[in-house]
Structures are given as C-alpha cells and as structure tokens.
C-alpha cells in the first residue's frame, strides 16, 4: 500500500536518511524502531509530506505522491506533542478535517461523537486542550487523526510523554483501535518493548538506514547484526570466545541473557571462567553481570531466580547452550544505545 523507494535526505549537509526502502501492507502495524537521531522521525515526515526527500520516491496505492502536498495525501499524523489546536475545544479539534472537506454539520457532529467514543473521550467534547491531561490529549489527537479514515496513520512516539502504566494501557488500546479501524499504522518508537508488544512488523533503523525488517519474533530470535541483537532484547555480544557455530571473521555470536548460565565453581560445572560483578533487579527480574576472564567482556544473565546465591566477586563458570547461539554480523563497536 505504501512504498518508499531509496529515500535520502540531508539537513545542512548532514545526511539523515541514506536510502530507506520500505513497503507497508494494508492494515499492517509496522514500527520504526531506533535510537534518537536514526532518521525515523524524518522518514515519517517525508511520508506525511511535511518534508521533501532529496531523492527517492514515495508511493501510496501505487500512485507517486512524492511531490503531493501534505493536505492532498490520504495519510494523517499523530504528532509527538499531539499538536492539538490550543484555541479550539476538543470537539472542534476532532472535527477539523471534516470541516475542511465541507462535510454537513450534522454528519460532523455524529462522526465527532463516534470518534470520541472510540477513544473513550466523549464526555470531554467541550473541554479546551489546556484542560486535559497528557493521556487525554493523546486520545483526542488520535481521534482527530482517524476521523477522516485515512489509509495510513503515522504515529510519532505518541506514548513518549506518558508514564509507564499509562503507556502499557495505551499500547493495548492503540492495538485494539488499529484492529477496529483496519487502517495501517506506522509507529515510531525508541522503546523496543513497545515495538515487540504492538507490531506486526518491526523495522530497526540505524544511521539513516533500515538495518533489519521483520516480525517481532524474527527480529528477536534471528537478528542479522550485533546492533539489532543488542538494541532489541539487549543480547550479549560475545566476541573472541570459542563458539560452536562456524563463523566468518566479521561475524560474532549473540546470546540472550535468559540463555546465559552462571554456575559457582564445582566439580560438575563447566564453561568459561568469570567473576560476578553486579547483581540487581531490573524489569521485574534479577540480572547478574559477570566479566569473562578470557576476553574481559561483560555478560548479563537473567535466568536466575530471586534466591540466587551468587554474590559480586564470586568466581563462576559462564556457559550457554550451543543452540542458543545466534550468529550476527558484527557491526557495532558497543556504542551507547
């Protein structure tokens, strides 16, 4: 339905997009996942028509819309800061796109009510945006964007400003909405958990390129590169350790933290020698870090129960099942994520 063909874009000689190609199917929920500055917002703005690509083409339903003005595209956006018009109440905000299309008053009223009901905001129709909480504004922004039934909805980190609990709840609601409306969503986030929870497909972006595109399980279970393995599910990248799998020189292995086993020295334990460096709770589970004596690399294990007797400073054997080794292209030097 939407097709991007090798889009490039530079701002003041800084290349932001280096040839992004992407296809989105009708009714699909696709997430552009990447850290800040990877070009995901620029990609979205080019699809919306708010930014012109330097080269490359944008197709919507096989029609070239690269040079079409934003108001002539059947694509709507939920902005990061919601961008509700501050001088219009909720009702007027939501009905804006219908007023522009000169839809009859009564029909506008009906559709605004429906759209507000869809996001459970029908009681707030007369409020001004300044009188709403962040989560409520968010819902109004979504209602405003979907009321004219666009083919494609673009969402630019719409949950970024909400607290964790509200974010989880909104994730479910967005997913429900997308199913009910049956329109395609392109969703932008830097939160891998959000991406894994909601998406039919995830496109991991880095340095103005799509590094890997696939379903959540493909991205998680079979990352192509060490960057993707680290960014999605923070896998351990184990360079220079003896691996079972055959590899070429520019490849390395990645092992998920849930597959890393740490055992105290004993007659029966085997593995690489290491020292426990840290033990802490994160994301509802115990994460124990250990440094490998062989390479000095840090590995994290999350498969230990709360009652794990391991303590920092303790010598351990680090091991993993050969089947859990993922061979990835080694393409990042451990930069900050």
């Amino acid at each position, binding site marked *: 339905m939407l097709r991007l063909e090798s889009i490039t874009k530079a701002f003041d000689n800084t290349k932001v997009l280096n040839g992004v190609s992407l296809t989105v199917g009708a009714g699909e929920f696709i997430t552009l996942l990447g850290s800040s500055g990877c070009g995901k917002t620029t990609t979205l703005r080019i699809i919306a*028509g*708010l930014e012109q690509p330097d080269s490359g083409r944008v197709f919507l339903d096989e029609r070239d819309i690269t040079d079409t003005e*934003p108001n002539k595209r059947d694509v709507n956006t939920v*902005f990061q800061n919601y*961008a509700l018009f501050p001088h219009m109440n909720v009702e007027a905000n939501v009905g*804006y796109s219908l007023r*522009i299309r000169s839809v009859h008053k009564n029909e506008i009223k009906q559709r605004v009510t429906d759209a507000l009901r869809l996001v459970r905001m029908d009681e707030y129709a007369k409020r001004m945006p300044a*009188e709403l909480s962040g989560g409520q504004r968010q819902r109004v922004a979504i209602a405003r*964007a979907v009321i*004219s039934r666009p083919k494609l909805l673009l969402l630019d980190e719409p949950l970024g400003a909400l607290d964790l609990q509200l974010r989880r709840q909104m994730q479910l609601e967005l997913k429900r909405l997308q199913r009910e409306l049956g329109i395609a969503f392109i969703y932008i986030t830097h939160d891998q958990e959000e991406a894994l929870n909601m998406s039919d497909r995830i496109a991991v972006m880095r340095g103005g390129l799509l590094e890997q595109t696939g379903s959540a399980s493909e991205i998680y279970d079979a990352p192509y590169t060490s960057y993707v393995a680290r960014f999605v599910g923070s896998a351990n990248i184990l360079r220079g350790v003896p691996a079972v799998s055959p590899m070429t020189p520019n490849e390395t292995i990645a092992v998920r933290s849930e597959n890393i086993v740490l055992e105290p020295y004993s007659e029966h334990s085997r593995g690489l020698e290491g020292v426990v460096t840290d033990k802490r709770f994160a994301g509802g589970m115990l994460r124990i870090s250990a440094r490998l004596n062989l390479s000095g690399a840090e590995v994290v294990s999350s498969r230990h129960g709360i009652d794990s007797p391991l303590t920092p400073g303790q010598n351990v054997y680090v091991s993993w099942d050969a089947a859990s080794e993922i061979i990835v292209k080694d393409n990042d030097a451990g930069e900050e994520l």
Partner: protein
Amino acid sequence: MKKLPLSGIYITFILFVMYLPILLVIIYSFNENKLTSVWSGFSLRWYGELIRDRSMFEALRNSVILAAISAVLAAVIGTLGAVGMSRAKLRGAAVMEYAATLPIMVPEIILGMVFLAFFSLIRLPFGMTTLVIAHTAFCVPYILLLVKARLAGMDKSYVEAARDLGAGELRAFFDITLPLIVPAVVSGMLLAVAMSMDDVIISVFVTGVNTNTLPIKIYTQIKTGVTPKTNALCTILFLITVIMGGLSSVIGSERKSRVKADKNKEVIN
C-alpha cells in the same frame, strides 16, 4: 535573604519623581481658579469649557481618526511583514528585520524632517494623508516586533497538523496562525494607538495648516500659557493612554485567564 529596606525606599522615590507631576496635573485639572498655581476649590469647570471648545473638539476628533487609521494600517502591514519574515529563509532576513524596526531607534526629529522632505519632494499636500502615512510608518515596528515574537514562540506543529489534516496553506493560516497571533496584533494596535495619540514631533513636521491633532493643540497652547483647561485635557489623554496600555497587557494574558475561569466554573458545578 532579607530584602534591603534601601530598595523599597529607592523604588518609592523613583515612582514619586515619575508620577508626582502627573498627579499634580490631574489634581489641578479640578482646580476652580483660573491660575494654575493657586488652588481655590474643586470644580469641573475646565472640563466643561473643554467640551464647549470647538477647535479642541476638532483636534481630538482628528487625533482619534488618525490613531485609528494608522493603527489598522500598521497592523495589516506589520502582521504581513512578520508572517512573511518568519517563513522566508532569505539571506537578508536579519538586515530586513533591522531595517523594519529602525524607526523605533531613529530620533523622532530626524524622522519628522525626513518625512517633511519626502512629502514635499513628491508634492503630497500636507494634512491628514501625510499624517496617516507618517504615523503608520512609525507604528509598524511595534506590531511587527510583537507579532514576530508571538510567531517565534508558536509551535510550528500546529500549522503542520492543520496541513496534515487537509488544510491548504491559506486555510491553515486563517484557521490556525491568525487566531493564535491575534492577541499580539491587538496589543500591538493598542500600543500603536497610544504612540499615535501622543506624538507631537513627527506630527508637527507633517501636518497641514488646517489639521490640528490634540498633542499639537496642547503644545501650541503652552506657548500662550498653561490654563487649567490644558490640565483637564492632559488628564483625559493620560487616562486614555493608561487604558490602552492596560488593555494591551491584559489581552496578552487573556487566554490563560479564560481557561482558568472555565476551570473555576467546573469546580462550582
């Protein structure tokens, strides 16, 4: 930290020096005596005489018309200029902005002379027309600056959202940009009216023989001696200016207080 008592004294002193003359003028406008320096009792006599004075009334009328027309013209020109400047990414934008706000910095006497020379060069008859042109010219920068500041502080995603939802450029301007800058335009206009209402120097240069504005009238009256009538007139002018200035700053914060008022209503309900 405790506040120094000195700062309180200082502020009182400054306010005293600034407002004492004005206060005296206001008080003496109610003086019954013909001599401005002798107080002999409260009276509205001079206000009555002021109203009966035809030439004075005409000057007032001229001033009001002049202020209104030039404020409106300046609002249109200044707003268009500010909007244009905020969108165009021209190389000379900084120079243009500087040039546009220059009239605020150039001494009035020079502006007056320049206008005089210019109008006689193009043989424009002196009178209301020349006054309007001159006043519009020196009022534009105030509106331009206020609207520009408002535009700069405005989130550009509002306009983008409107475009995204189907509005053409013009439609987005009238639906979104204009309503959001109206407070700045209005407060700029009120400022312009206040500036126009009390301008003497430029007006003296560009007015015709038969067109008196109120400030010019007062100025010429002083030559023949200050009467309590002048005091009465000054009091009225001062009041108008205060009201204009007050309105101008109130409108700036009006939207906020309206939201607050709505909230209060809700609490009551």
